[in-house]
């Protein structure tokens, strides 16, 4: 009995920590609709600042003062982020701010490394709360009890803030209907600044109070932001109470889950999220969002076919690329092959994000399963490369068929998070099913067949397949099917009224994207010679997202430009400097500020409006 109580209390303490970081994220999203990847950065900075102060100033002042200062510093960074960066992007397509915050994450990682150095740090225990109490024969740390109280206290304070102050009422109004608050003459920019302050402050606080419980490391940011997103989405975006309930649920399931199935912790939160979203598409306490009208989303201009002259130019460049092996070495060809694979991957993602209007945080699942499709037939059946490259899109397509069926029932960030949940579930299967997949040691020896063993033929293969896939995608977009997919994004209401089953088209689009991502993954497996669970992991999904957004989500060439720029930057900068993440982050931020419609989008728009007035895009 005592044991279960202790386990329950442990779960509560964990839940409190989760809640505090998630509440900030939820508030920021609720008001600004920004998917803030940098929330983990606030958290990490909070932890490091609190550590530094507690390390220098001994005793209670150092510890508690450190926590307070850390929260304020994080809040200040939030304000700076809003003032200097996000504010300039409110008129950009939805998600573009996400790209900006991703740049901030990269900058933050290297900034923290530069300031605090690489070592893990273990902070002091909380003065006055370092001991334990005995409860029913079990030892419970004082600090756990403190956290258990702190969570509800923060919830209560937030409730008071939102219900008893004018500012709070405005925040709630903005959460429910952003248009209306704007119409009421509320100073939106001030509201957003203060909301960022509060959200970042909560993140910093959450990081700082972990000081007595865990080591402060350079990896805290990414680990926590994913978990916080899960909590926010399970709770219902924008609902602080929902976040609290979700944190309780996940905290308790973790605490008791490890008793039954110790290995389940790796996906438990994602399983919970998938189940909750399957039953409640807007989370536990989330509301169906009011249909956005006249949002900042730029309307994509109608499709126009390419002119003959430009087709000729493209053909000529294709020929040049085909001739690349004549004058390039193996490494250049390997890099070019890889870039083509990334182009294919990004294009498959753009197909569902642009025409389909479905945001995905989990597209790596299909890329990775493609790689495994190839790897598994090689490992278990000694299959040839051609078989492998058939198995790759097949396995990925099957997964997309199953996962997509659930995903297309949701929309917006919920859809994105469900794709993430499925990606993590797929990842954990590859990771844990060692007998079949080799676990985290992966599958080795997936090298190209003898006819493509050297760099040049393999490059030509990648070039041929990528171009074929891009042309196919283009063909699909210009065909009635692609029109139907775009119609579903444009107006589900109109689609229903003209007999279009939106979900079915979204589902099929999802499968097509999965198949092509799988092909990319299969090629990638042969390019690298090995397959690992990391191919399905979050960073790959994020890379895909960044490539698509960077290029411009509404442009068919966006993913090409985005993949080339992002992949090129990463692979080249990594050779030049230890602080390549900082440089990549800064470049992304600058690109976002310079081209708030995406590089290709901006380029296309500028050229279009320069040429003629007839095709101007709508607002």
């Amino acid at each position, binding site marked *: 009995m005592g044991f279960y109580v202790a386990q329950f209390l*442990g779960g509560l303490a*964990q839940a409190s920590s989760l809640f505090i970081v998630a509440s900030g994220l939820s508030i920021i999203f609720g008001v600004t609709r920004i998917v803030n990847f940098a929330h983990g950065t606030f958290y990490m900075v909070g932890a490091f600042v609190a550590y530094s102060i507690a390390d220098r100033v001994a005793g209670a002042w150092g510890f508690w003062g450190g926590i307070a200062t850390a929260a304020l510093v994080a809040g200040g960074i939030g304000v700076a982020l809003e003032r200097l960066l996000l504010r300039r992007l409110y008129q950009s397509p939805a998600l573009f701010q996400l790209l900006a915050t991703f740049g901030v994450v990269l900058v933050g990682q290297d900034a923290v490394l530069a300031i605090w150095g690489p070592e893990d740090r273990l902070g002091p225990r909380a003065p006055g709360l370092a001991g334990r109490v005995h409860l029913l024969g079990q*030892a419970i*740390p004082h600090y756990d009890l403190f956290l258990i109280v702190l969570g509800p206290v923060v919830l209560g304070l937030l409730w008071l803030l939102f219900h008893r102050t004018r500012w709070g009422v405005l925040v709630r109004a903005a959460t429910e209907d952003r248009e209306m608050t704007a119409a009421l003459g509320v100073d939106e920019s001030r509201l957003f600044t203060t909301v960022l302050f509060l959200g970042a402050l909560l993140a910093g606080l959450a990081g700082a109070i972990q000081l007595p419980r865990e080591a402060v490391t350079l990896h805290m940011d990414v680990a926590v932001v994913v978990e916080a997103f899960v909590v926010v989405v399970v709770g219902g975006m924008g609902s602080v109470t929902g976040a609290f309930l979700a944190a309780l649920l996940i905290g308790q399931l973790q605490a008791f889950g490890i008793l039954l199935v110790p290995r389940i912790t790796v996906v438990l939160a994602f399983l919970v999220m998938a189940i909750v979203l399957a039953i409640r598409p807007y989370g536990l306490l989330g509301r169906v969002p009011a249909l956005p009208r006249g949002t900042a989303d730029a309307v994509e201009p109608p499709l126009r076919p390419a002119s003959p002259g430009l087709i000729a130019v493209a053909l000529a460049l294709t020929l040049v690329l085909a001739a690349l092996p004549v004058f390039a070495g193996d490494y250049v060809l390997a890099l070019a092959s890889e870039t083509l694979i990334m182009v294919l991957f990004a294009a498959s993602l753009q197909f569902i994000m642009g025409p389909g209007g479905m945001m995905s945080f989990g597209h790596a699942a299909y890329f990775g399963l493609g790689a495994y499709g190839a790897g598994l037939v090689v490992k278990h059946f000694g299959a040839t490369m051609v078989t492998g490259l058939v198995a790759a899109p097949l396995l990925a397509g099957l997964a997309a068929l199953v996962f997509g069926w659930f995903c297309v029932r949701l929309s917006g960030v919920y859809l994105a998070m469900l794709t993430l949940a499925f990606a993590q579930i797929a990842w954990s299967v590859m990771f844990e099913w060692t007998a079949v997949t080799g676990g985290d040691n992966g599958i080795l020896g997936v090298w190209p067949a003898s006819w493509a063993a050297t760099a040049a033929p393999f490059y030509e293969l990648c070039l041929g397949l990528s171009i074929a896939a891009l042309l196919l995608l283009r063909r699909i977009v210009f065909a009635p099917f692609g029109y139907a997919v775009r119609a579903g994004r444009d107006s589900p209401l109109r689609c229903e009224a003209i007999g279009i089953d939106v979900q079915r088209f979204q589902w099929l689009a999802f499968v097509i994207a999965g198949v092509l991502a799988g092909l990319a993954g299969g090629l990638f497996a042969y390019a690298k*010679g090995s397959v690992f669970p990391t191919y399905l992991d979050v960073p790959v999904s994020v890379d895909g997202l960044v490539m698509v957004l960077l290029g411009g989500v509404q442009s068919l060439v966006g993913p090409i430009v985005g993949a080339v720029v992002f992949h090129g930057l990463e692979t080249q900068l990594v050779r030049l400097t230890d602080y390549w993440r900082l440089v990549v982050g800064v470049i992304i931020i600058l690109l976002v500020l310079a081209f708030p419609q995406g590089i*290709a989008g901006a380029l296309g728009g500028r050229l279009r409006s320069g040429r003629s007035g007839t095709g101007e895009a709508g607002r």
Partner: protein
Amino acid sequence: MRWSRTVVAAGLGVALRVALVGLGTAPSPAMADEAVKIGEINSYTGLPAFTLPYRNGWQMAVEEINEAGGVLGGRPIEVVSRDDDGKPEDAVRAATELLDNEKVVALAGTYFSHIGLAVADFALHHKILFIASEPLTDALTWDKGNRYTFRLRPNTYTQAAMLVEEAAKLPARRWATVAPNYEYGESAVASFKQLLKAKRPDVEFVAEQWPVQGRIDAGPVVQALAAAKPDAIFNVTFGADLAKFVREGSIRGLFDDRSVVSLLTAEPEYLDPLKAEAPEGWIVTGYPWDQIQTPAHQTFLDAYRKKFGEAPRLGSVVGYTTFKAIAAAINKAGSTDSDKLAEAMRGLSVASPFGDITFRPGDHQSTMGAFVGRLAVKDGHGVMVDWRYDDGAAYLPPDDVAAARRPKD
């Protein structure tokens, strides 16, 4: 969409240019005084706490080698180092670049096991020597070993075996294990169980916990272990997880009256952050850099402190010895030909700060050992006491037995 084709074209053009930047200058034919290039790949941005001391180590080795006249009768060694960002695919890309652009004659490095395996397979495929310095997975030299891959550090099995020797002496019969849920944790626990059962048929394993690497939920894990009422615990967690586990465990009294046997815990990389909270009495493997009195180590220690103004970590020794081994292999082979280098590596003996080590000809595993001892706290810092150096050769399975586990070349 009218403009799409141009932008496609422009985009691919950029790709081409980006790619060509990587070309660099064409290599000229080898000259007598031309540097011998070695490629080096590690997770510098992903794991700076371990890899930066490691880089110091190999930089010092390269300096010493070149000051002593280089290799092959006067050619200096030049190391081209790349970050893999903690991703196997990036490591393979870097390897391609090093091989093709930089014309390196050998590859070295890597930290994570799966990255080590990816580069090892690349080395086999491209027929180039690879010295895996850090990865611990048994598979690297055994089940997935290959002709061109050698490994410096004692693998998981060997270190577990060293700890089992001490564990078997304990009265404890009921054991619990806690390990990160990936191959390293799994194989450490499996080896430990198997070896301990062989020595002590009376022991039983009553609980196991598999926290996610880097995301341990320490309170519930500690409670769950305590609930099984074990006499002793075998711990494989390290880094930030270890810190959390130690703190929660000591607050909750998990370690009171219990023995703990723990892998890697006394390596300075992981021990130093614990400071005064280093759990006293734990039986651990590690690196007591401040207490090793051998001349070989003293020389290394003095040089390192002089050069970098700080104490070496275990990574420093690993980086240092890896490149000493490569230089020795090149000299022994008298050539930079991959097959000759691989042949030279088999049975190569090298002087390391821990004494002479040999790369076994059968399984390509070096006999570098580890220090086993108990943890104590002195002047607010964790230290190893009652330690000894266990030579890897004494704990590895016999070379021919190990070699039989390897795939046929």
